[in-house]
């Protein structure tokens, strides 16, 4: 950044990187600030949406706890988006490329933040200490095909590593591009493992409401969180792996077939995403979760 002063006037020239960072920061702070300011309205909107979709009654005695649960989720979501946007955005602005990664990672940050928010205790005082004698499993909350697609997507980082190793042996790329490729795949794999762990924690998350309607709400809110985690995690693992291989194939020295492999991986990733989206839209009334997760929960 260069600063010139002429007779009291200050003229500031931002460098390219600094300019991108300032723009990023401006939009980020504005977006996050607005989201934080209107979070109560967003919570009320989410409550109405879930109630309409799942055809749930009011939570009755647990209404205050429900609003607190949804509020924790909303707070976690905003923080998750903010962290991903600012950290990743700063890195990408600095590197000057790959801004589409933000589109991949913001849903990941939102879903992870929502999940972490949901795990925060809502402080139910003097609640009935009751529990169902069944183990909560992902199969109770999302469709079997969604689970299979997630499992397939979580394998994509391993496939990408195999492709890069094979290409490294076949071609003669610069060492730096190979290291960057492996590091990026490592980041994608780490994100995938975080999602995997988050799904387990959300399944184990405590039920704190105790009325019949409250218990049903707990399960539907959990189903929504898990669907978001499955969708965003699958998207990040599949599309992220494809993007890394794509990036590597564009660097000098890598064999030509890596471009074809990247193309195939990208098409596969888009297919996975498309099917996940269609499944989520088709089951938008939580029919599966209501039939499985709510089995045994009195409504």
């Amino acid at each position, binding site marked *: 950044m260069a600063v010139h002063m002429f007779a009291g006037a200050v003229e500031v020239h931002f460098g390219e990187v600094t300019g991108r960072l300032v723009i990023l920061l401006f939009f980020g702070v504005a977006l996050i600030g607005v989201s934080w300011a209107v979070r109560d309205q967003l919570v009320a909107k989410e409550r109405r949406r879930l109630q309409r979709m799942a055809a749930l009654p009011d939570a009755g005695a647990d209404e205050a706890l429900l609003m607190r649960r949804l509020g924790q989720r909303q707070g976690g979501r905003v923080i998750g988006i903010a962290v991903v946007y600012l950290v990743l955005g700063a890195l990408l602005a600095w590197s000057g490329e790959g801004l589409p990664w933000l589109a991949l990672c913001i849903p990941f940050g939102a879903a992870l933040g929502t999940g972490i928010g949901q795990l925060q205790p809502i402080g139910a005082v003097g*609640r*009935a*200490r*009751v*529990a*169902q*004698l*069944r*183990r*909560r*499993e992902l199969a109770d909350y999302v469709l079997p095909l969604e689970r299979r697609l997630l499992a397939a997507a979580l394998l994509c980082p391993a496939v990408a590593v195999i492709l890069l190793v094979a290409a490294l042996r076949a071609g003669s790329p610069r060492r730096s591009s190979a290291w960057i490729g492996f590091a990026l795949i490592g980041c994608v794999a780490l994100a995938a493992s975080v999602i995997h762990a988050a799904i387990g924690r959300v*399944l*184990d*998350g*405590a*039920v704190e409401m105790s009325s019949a309607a409250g218990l049903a709400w707990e399960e539907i809110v959990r189903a929504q969180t898990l669907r978001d985690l499955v969708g965003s995690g699958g998207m990040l693992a599949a599309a992220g792996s494809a993007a890394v291989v794509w990036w590597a194939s564009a660097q000098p020295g890598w064999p030509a077939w890596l471009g074809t492999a990247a193309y195939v991986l990208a098409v596969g990733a888009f297919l996975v995403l498309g099917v996940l989206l269609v499944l989520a839209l088709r089951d938008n009334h939580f029919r599966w979760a209501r039939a499985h997760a709510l089995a045994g929960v009195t409504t």
Partner: protein
Amino acid sequence: MLSVAPESVTPAYEQIVTQVIGAIREGALAAGARLPTVRQLAGDLGLATNTVARAYRELEARGFVVTNGRKGTVVSAPPAEPLTDEIDAAATLFVKSAQRSGLDLAAALGVIRSAW
């Protein structure tokens, strides 16, 4: 449903053990049924994870559940009921008669099989 009364003089882990055994005996929990994870049950009941883990260890020691890695804690086949005094006395009598007659264990079991 499992419930824990915090004001009870019975320790929480014992309350869990008793109710799980009751559910198994009544058939509400069949062999192979997966129990909740320790963390899930502790969260739902508002207990420390150590308390639930102690209950699961007790259940495992008494043969009602088995814990194996990925599957978690599952209900095992119901443990054999203890022998009644009558059967115990008859078995002792039979073993003594068999020993007096010079039978070894395999031959004695053969006699039982043919009589079964």
